[in-house]
């Protein structure tokens, strides 16, 4: 039993021949398998069952059909988690039904199966849409897997580096030339010993010395050239790759930013690009150099004395074996050392961070005992590392010493018998040491090539992403009046979980609409579609009757503005952040926008006022201050459609009240969509849309919705109750502000 990822643990729309016989025979005529997941347990032991989701039923099959639930009888599917195991559960009439058991190793597989099943039974996702999206996802995954193989990644990397190919070739040529030139001095020394010193040919002395001088000069020049070309190469690699990845970042939709996380993208642009550059310089280029050196020096050694060459090769198998053993085993010893050390650090950290607990419970003696015990274990682990190293490297050293002595022994005998000159022997021993290093280098290079493939694969993962929204060549500029229509909009980020399910609504020009609903109900996704950050998979979003897909992206970005819940500011001045949507805005316009957003007063209290640098992501401002700067930026843009995603979430209650009043004034006559959890923010809206699980469940004015006794009323009452409790506990301060706001709205 192994937990290595099994590619067939989840099959999506598998071809019939990939289905096990027992599953095939359990299917009814016309029944299509949507997904098949394999468990790794049966009952209380390891084993295998198949959970099969078809277009009509949910089945559990092993050698025979164990369970068959028609999907129209299933209300939902879920997973119960335990320490090691999980149980797949179906909610049916009459309660829950446990269907299959699997270990946590299969949780990801069954999570996907559950999401797909719930799309059918809860989401009522149209079957064709579900199938199309799932198959798209499967194709994308297969393509990604194909392109991410080490070999494919390295070949593609080289293709990408074609612009700097001459520098790459020059790097290899110069580096090989340096090594080859390095082979000349031992040969000149051979002439010095054999011809000049032994045979007394004084006429050659000057030539040899000049030759050695020339070699040194050439070497110096080549080394400088090498350093220059290397720098060019390294800079070329990083700049070429980083520029490609950076350009790609702007094409990525927000889904991909969410998928990789800011840290993940950062690491691919900075760390992986550096890693590729490093591996190229330590693995790829040296691979050619070492191969060339092994060939050159090997041939030279064999030419000087083939028999001695065989003797010189004897320590190589010993050393290679020792290297392999060391690489396999050393990590265990070092890991143990690290674990022992981290326990010591953890006791010290507990003692300092939980000093009050240690002292108040009188644990000093126990902690000291524990610390001393860990110290002893650490000391023992250190000694084990020492002993382990001593078992390996002295043996390797000894093998080289013995081989070297044997070379001297047999070589000297050859010299004494006249079969070899003294100079040749000296040259041989010198070349011999130059041979060992590239042999070990080659082993290391091959290992690093694997790592190069991994790092390159991570970069291609980004470069291969297709943009979510493509502008057609005949896209048009539209002067918006503010009419927005959503017509049966279905949207999924990952092909499995649907964020919007058949949303249809119409917002008239100048209408102010509130969008409310629990977290994850689809409000923000709908707002993103209105900004045309994504295209819906089904249905359309239309602006003044024109499908968003046909409108130039720049046209929409000029006329639609969004203020985010956690606004992001650029690392520049407040003034430039406000003017971000309207380059060239006058100082008066900037001040007017800031005043409208209630930001002016706090800005003027700052010593550098509008010229204050806000820091990375606006870190020098508070959450409320950032929100107001972002609002000012949106207002300065004077958009035809304004989307406010929780615009007052970061504000205190009294400021929220002020800003809400200001918003009421500023949004008059402008199409405005306000997403809000605090329902009091919506008091001036013309209409409220209530969303739940990706659908619009209610629409109407505040009063109409309260009369309906639906989700809105429940949300409203829950909020009112919470505020009343707060008010009872503290009538004043923030609570008073909230109550004022709610009272006004009510």
């Amino acid at each position, binding site marked *: 039993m192994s*937990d290595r990822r099994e590619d067939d643990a989840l099959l999506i729309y598998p071809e019939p021949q990939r289905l096990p016989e027992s599953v095939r025979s359990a299917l009814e005529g016309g029944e299509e398998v949507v997904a098949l997941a394999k468990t790794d347990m049966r009952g209380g032991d390891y084993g295998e069952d198949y959970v099969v989701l078809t277009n009509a039923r949910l089945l559990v099959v092993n050698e025979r059909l164990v369970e068959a639930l028609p999907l129209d009888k299933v209300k939902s599917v879920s997973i119960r988690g*335990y320490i090691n195991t999980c149980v797949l559960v179906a909610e049916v009439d009459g309660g829950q039904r446990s269907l299959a058991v699997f270990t946590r190793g299969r949780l990801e597989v069954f999570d996907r199966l559950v999401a797909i099943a719930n799309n059918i039974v809860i989401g009522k996702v149209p079957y064709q849409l579900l199938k199309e999206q799932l198959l798209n996802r499967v194709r994308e995954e297969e393509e990604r897997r194909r392109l991410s193989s080490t070999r494919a990644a390295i070949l593609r990397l080289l293709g990408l580096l074609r612009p700097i190919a001459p520098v790459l070739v020059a790097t290899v040529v110069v580096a090989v030339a340096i090594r080859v030139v390095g082979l000349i001095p031992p040969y000149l020394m051979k002439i010095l010993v054999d011809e000049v010193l032994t045979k007394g040919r004084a006429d050659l002395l000057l030539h040899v010395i000049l030759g050695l001088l020339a070699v040194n000069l050439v070497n110096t020049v080549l080394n400088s050239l090498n350093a220059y070309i290397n720098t060019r190469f390294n800079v070329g690699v990083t700049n070429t790759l980083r520029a490609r990845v950076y350009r790609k970042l702007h094409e990525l939709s927000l889904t991909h930013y969410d998928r990789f996380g800011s840290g993940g993208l950062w690491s691919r642009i900075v760390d992986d690009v550096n890693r590729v550059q490093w591996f190229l310089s330590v693995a790829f280029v040296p691979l050619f150099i070492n191969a060339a050196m092994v060939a050159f020096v090997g041939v030279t050694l064999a030419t000087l004395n083939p028999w001695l060459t065989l003797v010189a090769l004897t320590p190589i198998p010993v050393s290679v074996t020792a290297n392999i053993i060391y690489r396999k085993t050393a990590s265990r*010893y070092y890991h143990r050392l690290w674990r022992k050390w981290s326990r010591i650090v953890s006791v010290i950290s507990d003692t300092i961070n939980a000093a009050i607990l240690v002292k108040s419970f009188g644990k000093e003696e126990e902690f000291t005992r524990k610390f001393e015990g860990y110290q002893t274990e650490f000391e023992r682990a250190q000694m084990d590392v020492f002993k382990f190293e001593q078992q390996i490297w002295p043996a390797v050293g000894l093998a080289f010493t013995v081989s070297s002595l044997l070379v001297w022994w047999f070589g000297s005998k050859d010299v004494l018998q006249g079969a070899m000159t003294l100079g040749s022997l000296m040259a041989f021993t010198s070349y011999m040491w130059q041979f060992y290093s590239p042999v070990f280098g080659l082993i290391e290079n091959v290992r690093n090539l694997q790592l190069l493939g991994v790092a390159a694969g991570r970069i291609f993962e980004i470069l291969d992403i297709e943009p979510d929204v493509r502008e057609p060549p005949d896209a048009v500029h539209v002067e918006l009046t503010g009419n927005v229509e959503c017509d049966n909009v279905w949207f999924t980020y990952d092909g499995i979980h649907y964020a919007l399910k058949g949303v249809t609504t119409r917002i008239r020009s100048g209408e102010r609409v509130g969008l409310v609903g629990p977290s994850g109900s689809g409000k923000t996704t709908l707002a993103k579609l209105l900004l045309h950050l994504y295209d819906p998979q089904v249905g359309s979003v239309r602006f003044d009757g024109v499908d968003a897909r046909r409108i130039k992206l720049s046209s929409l970005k000029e006329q639609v503005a969004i203020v985010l819940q956690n606004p992001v500011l650029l690392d520049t001045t407040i003034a430039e952040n406000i003017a971000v949507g309207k380059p060239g805005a006058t100082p008066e316009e900037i001040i007017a926008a800031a005043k409208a957003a209630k930001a002016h007063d706090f800005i003027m209290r700052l010593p550098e006022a509008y010229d204050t640098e806000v820091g990375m992501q606006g870190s020098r401002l508070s959450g409320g201050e950032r929100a107001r700067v972002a609002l000012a930026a949106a207002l300065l843009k004077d958009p035809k459609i304004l989307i406010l995603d929780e615009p007052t979430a970061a504000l205190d209650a009294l400021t929220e009240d002020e800003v809400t009043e200001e918003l009421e004034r500023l949004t008059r006559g402008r199409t405005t969509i306000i997403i809000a959890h605090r329902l009091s923010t919506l008091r001036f809206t013309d209409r409220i849309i209530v969303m739940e699980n990706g659908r619009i469940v209610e629409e109407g004015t505040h009063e109409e919705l309260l009369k309906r006794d639906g989700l809105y009323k429940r949300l409203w009452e829950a909020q009112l109750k919470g505020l009343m409790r707060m008010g009872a506990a503290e009538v004043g301060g923030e609570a008073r502000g909230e109550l004022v706001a709610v009272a006004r709205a009510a």
Partner: protein
Amino acid sequence: MPSLGQLKLLDPSRVRVVDARLDELDVEIDGRLYRGVRPKRPFPFSHPQIVILYSGDEELGILRDYRRLDPKSRELLEQVLRVIYFMPRIRKVLSIRSVEGKYEWRVLTDKGELTFQTWGRCVRVLHDGRLVVRDIYSRAYLVEEPEKLDSRSRLYLSMMI
């Protein structure tokens, strides 16, 4: 000290398990039948004999020692506990090797030979000296008497503790 009187302790003689299915039981308590009951151990490692019975979110009561149930009930309950608290016992560590920043263990367990991967920090020492090894999927494997393992297994384990 909170009052123990608040605890709903069940008398084992008045509890009868009538059926079991994967992680659920049908249980009769004081003559009343509850279907789809799920047993949970509040102390799965330190006091595994204590079991709390749930019907949905409702706590039906605490069995201080489920082993005192009648043999048939005990057998059915243990059948479900085996599913819920499934945990292979490691008898021998055959090898641990480092693979791309993780550790790949090959072990012999009461369920046969297994291979799994762990992160660096993966072994928890319980108060009674038993070890719990967690793999990258958070699955647990128990080493019941580490000191009785063969010397090679002990050496491997000592490297990870």
